[in-house]
Structure formats: structure tokens, C-alpha cells
């Protein structure tokens, strides 16, 4: 590819870089027990929740920030971050009319009109802006089926027994540095419970958005699918342009009980930093699900944003005959760094897992796949298939694959396939010759390359993801 084209790739600007003035209720920067007490008090939390947070904080204090990911960055100054920021909007909202018009404008600029979403797709959304949920829709329809879909804060108040039972069981407080931090300071997130045998009639969706300079966002999501239930959960996010780095350290826990199925889809588009690699979001996320007998968890992610991403949505296949899937597209451009993949832990008999990972690197970025497939000593007839493909654009980016395989049972069948390819001059010229300009050609080639993953996304999300891929690599071209 010519230098000119490469320059244009790296010149692509972040389309969603703007800020909205919403009055914020903010705690001064810094982290100590007092701050945690303030957060807990502001949220009017019960004592057990406060104790849980304080315990996590003590654990975190003893931990060290991990060094093993294949990324380099300036470590965040945890004392310079404000750990709580809520739009000043205390009263419960029944309709969109009551939502701050500025906030609605923000969504409109993102092309995510709630109204339209509601009307066209029947998607219920729990919108998280700077840590507090401000609009929850379709609650009534869900309530009729006994489905609980609300903010984590609300769940702690309204359904403490469910939260207490499951919170931290899949991702324990001491799991890792950022999980411990999240446990101590998370301000909100989503909670979802699907009762026994219920098939959730709509896609549940949350749009995350960091909206306050210098505010770390610590989301906590817990999805519990009771025996024989099904839910498809969508998570998407965009973040405004900032000079300083913003930290995003979320924890997502999924519980799929016997015969249950959870499909969890993510489109991630946090601010990646500018053309010089300045700014951008640090995205250090812990996502994990537990499958009981005959249960299935499917992670699908399209990751295009963040300056540094560090994320491994994983499945613990505890129950016999359980199934774990991971479908991922990770795009890095400019100076972005991504170290992402999955862990499939086979514990039960006849468990199956599939990993399809598609990395795309452009500019001066680095894109690593890191995956673990572990077959435990009692996991008879466990099967895994992994396919890790890398696509390179230009000659200044890097793609890396770190597959770890640990098989402790002789019947384990583990397959790993990997390819690396380049969008070549030949492909582009071929498209050009047929009348397709270089920009459209790259979009076409990239979408073809990611097809297996995009096909896993719910329809309306797939369209959005496709658009996002195009935007991320836009200007990739002359």
C-alpha cells in the first residue's frame, strides 16, 4: 500500500469526539476508604454492600498492576481519578420527556435515538451515562415475564438477595487488579435476571458512554439466566474525545444455569486517542461466564476503540455438555494496542468450545490475540476449535498470537488454526479496476474477512458494527 494511503488511514478522526454539558454531581479525585464510603452512601447502599466494597478495596491495595499483557502505556494515577460522577437527576423517569434534553442530543449525535430504537427494534435499553442509569424502557413488558432488567444500583436496593447470591461468584474480588478495583468503586451497571424457563422476548441493550473528563468508569454487570431460560444481551459504547486518558475497568459476570443460554454481544468504540497516540481510553475489562449443565454462553465482540484494550471474555464450562463460544473482531489503528482473546475452561464432560478471532491492524498499532484452552482432569471428551486470523494493513503495524493450551484429559480434542494476511495492492487494484474506489474496497474486504463474526450479531447490531468498522478504517484510503 502506498504511503499516501497509509497517511490517510492514520488521519481518520474519531467521529464521536464531542462533549455534552450535563451538570454533574462529582466526588473529588482520589481513592481511599472514605471515598468508598461516600460512594456507598450516595447510592444509599445497605451495609453488606459497603462491607463488600471495603473488603475489595483492601484486597486491591495489596495487589500489583499486571505487567504480562503485550501492551505499553503510562499507568493511571489512581489518586487523580474521580470515582463518582452522576448526572444531577435524582427522580425516577417514566418517559423520555423527562430526560435531560442535552443528554438526548448526545444520543442523537451518536445516531442512537432512543425513540427510534424503541419504535423500530423493540429493544429495551438501560442507558448508562457516567455511571448512573437515566432511562430504562420496556420494563413493564419484561416484568410481565418476571424478567428483571435494571441498573445495578436499583438491583442492590430492590433485589438484594439475587445480587448477594451471585455478585463476585464468577469474577471474585481478588481475581485480578482491575476486578478488585471495580469491586471497590463500581458506581453502576446493569443487572438482569431471567426466571426459569423464560425466553426473553427482546434483545436487552445497554449503551455505555463516558461523559465526564477525568472520570473513570467502573461498570458492573451481572446477568443471571435461570434454568432453561434464554437471553440475548447487547452492549455498545462510544466515548467523547479527551486529552487525558480515561480508565474503563468493567466487570461482567454471566451465570447460565442448567439448560440456559446467554448470548452477550458487544460493540466497543471508546475514544482511541489522536493521530499521535495521545489520549484515548484504557479499557481493562474482566468478562466471564459460568455454564452449568447443558448451558451455553456465547460472547461476540466487535472492538474498534480504546487506546489500550485488555480483555478476555471467558467461559467456565463447569456443567457436563455445556458450550462456550467466542467470536471476536478487534480493529486497531494509529497507535492503538489491543491484547484480547478468551479463556475456555473445560471442567465438565462432553463440553465444547469454539473460538473465532479476527484481528485487523492498521497504522502503527499492535493487535494481540491471547487465548487459553484448558481441559481439566475430569473433562472427558472435551472439544475445542480455535481459529485466529490476522489482517494487516500497511507495514508499520503488528499482529501477535499467544495461544495457550493445557489438556489434562487424554480424550481432549483441541484444534487451532491461525492465518495472517495482508490487504494487498493486488486486491485493491482488482477492486479499483472493477470501479470500486479504494475506500469502498477496504470496507468490502474487511467486512468479508469479519463475516463469520458479524453473522453472530443480532441484525440491527450487525449493521451498526459494519458501519463502525468502516468508520474505524475510514480515510484508510485515498
Amino acid at each position, binding site marked *: 500500500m*502506498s504511503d499516501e494511503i497509509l497517511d490517510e488511514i492514520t488521519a481518520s478522526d474519531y467521529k464521536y469526539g464531542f462533549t455534552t454539558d450535563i451538570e454533574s454531581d462529582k466526588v473529588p479525585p482520589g481513592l481511599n476508604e472514605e471515598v468508598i464510603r461516600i460512594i456507598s452512601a450516595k447510592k444509599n447502599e445497605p451495609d453488606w454492600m459497603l462491607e463488600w466494597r471495603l473488603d475489595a478495596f483492601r484486597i486491591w491495595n495489596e495487589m500489583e498492576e499486571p505487567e504480562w499483557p503485550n501492551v505499553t502505556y503510562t499507568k493511571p494515577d489512581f489518586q487523580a481519578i474521580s470515582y463518582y460522577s452522576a448526572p444531577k437527576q435524582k427522580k425516577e423517569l417514566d418517559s423520555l420527556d423527562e430526560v435531560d434534553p442535552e443528554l438526548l442530543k448526545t444520543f442523537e449525535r451518536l445516531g442512537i435515538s432512543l425513540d427510534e430504537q424503541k419504535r423500530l427494534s423493540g429493544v429495551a435499553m438501560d442507558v448508562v451515562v457516567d455511571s448512573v442509569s437515566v432511562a430504562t424502557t420496556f420494563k413493564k413488558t419484561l416484568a410481565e415475564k418476571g424478567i428483571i432488567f435494571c441498573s445495578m444500583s436499583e438491583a442492590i436496593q430492590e433485589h438484594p438477595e439475587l445480587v448477594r447470591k451471585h455478585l463476585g461468584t464468577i469474577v471474585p474480588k481478588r481475581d485480578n487488579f482491575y476486578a478488585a478495583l471495580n469491586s471497590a468503586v463500581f458506581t453502576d451497571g446493569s443487572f438482569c435476571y431471567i426466571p426459569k424457563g423464560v425466553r426473553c422476548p427482546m434483545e436487552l441493550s445497554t449503551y455505555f458512554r463516558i461523559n465526564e473528563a477525568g472520570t473513570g468508569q467502573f461498570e458492573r454487570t451481572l446477568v443471571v439466566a435461570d434454568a432453561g431460560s434464554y437471553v440475548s444481551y447487547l452492549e455498545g459504547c462510544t466515548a467523547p474525545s479527551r486529552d487525558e486518558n480515561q480508565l474503563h475497568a468493567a466487570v461482567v459476570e454471566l451465570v447460565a444455569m442448567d439448560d440456559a443460554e446467554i448470548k452477550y454481544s458487544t460493540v466497543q468504540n471508546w475514544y482511541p486517542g489522536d493521530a499521535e497516540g495521545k489520549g484515548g481510553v484504557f479499557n481493562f475489562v474482566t468478562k466471564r461466564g459460568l455454564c452449568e449443565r447443558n448451558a451455553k454462553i456465547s460472547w461476540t465482540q466487535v472492538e474498534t476503540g480504546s487506546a489500550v484494550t485488555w480483555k478476555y471474555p471467558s467461559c467456565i464450562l463447569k456443567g457436563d455438555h455445556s458450550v462456550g463460544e467466542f467470536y471476536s473482531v478487534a480493529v486497531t489503528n494509529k497507535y492503538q494496542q489491543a491484547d484480547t482473546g478468551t479463556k475456555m475452561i473445560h471442567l465438565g464432560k462432553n463440553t465444547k468450545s469454539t473460538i473465532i478471532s479476527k484481528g485487523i491492524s492498521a497504522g502503527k498499532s499492535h493487535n494481540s490475540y491471547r487465548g487459553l484452552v484448558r481441559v481439566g482432569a475430569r473433562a472427558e471428551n472435551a472439544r475445542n476449535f480455535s481459529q485466529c486470523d490476522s489482517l494487516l494493513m500497511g507495514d508499520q503495524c503488528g499482529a501477535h498470537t499467544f495461544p495457550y493450551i493445557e489438556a489434562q484429559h487424554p480424550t481432549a480434542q483441541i484444534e487451532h488454526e491461525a492465518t495472517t494476511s495482508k490487504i*494487498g*495492492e*493486488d*486486491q485493491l*487494484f*482488482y*477492486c*479499483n*479496476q*472493477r*470501479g*470500486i*474506489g*479504494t475506500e*469502498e474496497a477496504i470496507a*468490502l*474486504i474487511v*467486512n*468479508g*474477512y*469479519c*463475516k*463469520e463474526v458479524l453473522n453472530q450479531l443480532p441484525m440491527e447490531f450487525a449493521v451498526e458494527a459494519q458501519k463502525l468498522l468502516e468508520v474505524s478504517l475510514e480515510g484508510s484510503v485515498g
Partner: protein
Amino acid sequence: MLKIKDLKAQIEDNQILKGINLEINAGEVHAIMGPNGSGKSTLSSVIAGREDYEVTDGAIDFDGEDLLDLDPEERAHKGIFLSFQYPVEIPGVTVSNFIKTAINESRKGRGQEPMEAREMLAKMREKSALLEMDKSYLSRSLNEGFSGGEKKRNEIFQMAMLEPKLAILDETDSGLDIDALRIVANGVNKLRSKDNAVVVITHYQRLLDYIKPDYVHVLYQGKIVKSGGPELAHELEERGYDWIKAENA
């Protein structure tokens, strides 16, 4: 339609075309023959606008416009089509999606509306039948896992869909068995009209038995050293290229 004047082109300081003169009018079929390395593929790449080649002198005029000023896709929009000697694979992009994008981007380039889906589909059916291609073929990934013959047939299918003014077939006969050759040639012949022109680049007389040229040119060491009627191709078939080389030594 196409006027090439004293065209010189190089790749990495290696002069390949050393002054090509060629005029092609609507309704004509020209064959360009010549030994390996004589510059045949370079000529087609330069006409199509491949960036690797640097034009150092001369001009290409297409319907009164300076072709060298245009990007490859703009040339395609004007009606220039190149059937590749080695068509590329694009995994995950179906033949139908690819050709749909190609047609609509070309229409956009010409300021036209996208083609109606129904019309597109009907056209795909018609042209794939013309090239005796199985229906399943349209939903396969472009050229991925295609045999040599399938790739070439796919090129001519795209040509039939795009209906170019000037089609350049770069060694379309290589890798084809006799049945595929007949099908491909038939596809090309169906496209011929008084309004368009075809340039056939080949080593062998074989293809010219099916696609009858009006003119035959011999390219040797970056120049057209001989031009004639169809009989020249037969002469080359019988005598090989040595006498051409000797004449130009």
C-alpha cells in the same frame, strides 16, 4: 476509441514499454501476441491504471479524454475492463455482492442511481446462464477455492455484467480446458457490438479460433514490431517467434 501514442513505461527503473503506438476503434477486435516478457501484461496494466508502473512518456486517449489523468476506478467507470491473468481472491465477499458493489459504484461514478435489486438479479441470472455457471456460484466467496477455469469464467461473467466499452483480456485462455475455452469465448462474442472493442492478449492461436480478431499485433521488447490481419496469428503459430526476434535483433 483508444489511441496510444509513443507510450513508454517502467517499473523500478526497468523500462518495459519502449514506445507503443496503437489505435483501436469501436467494433474492432485486436489481438496482441508476443513471447514472454515482451510487455503484454504491462501494457494492459498501464491502460487499466496500475500504480506500480510509471509512465515516462507518451499518451493514452480514450474517447477524447486523457486516460493517464484518471484513477483506475475512474477508468473503469468510463468503460474500461481488464480480465486479469491472475484474478485475486476476496474471502467472505460473495460473487454477487462483489459484482453488485462494482456495478453500483460504477453507476455512482457516472452519476446514475443504483441498479434496482430486481433488475440486478435478473441480469445475474442471465449472464451466469450465458457462461454456463451453476446457481450456487453466485453465493461463493470471490475466487476463493475456484479452479483456474472458474476464475477465468468469473472474469468474463463480470465483464458481461459491467458491459464495458473496451475489454482487455489478459491471457484469459491460460488454464482453460477446451470446453471452458469455448464457453468463455462464447461469452465474449455475445458482448461484441459495433459500440465496443476487445483486446485479446494471448500466446496462442487457440483462443483466436473462437474470438476472431480483425487485427493482430506482435509485441516484442516493448514495441509493436509487426501488425497484420488474422493470418499473422496463423503464421506465428506455425513459425514461432524466432523469426520475429531475428528480424528485430
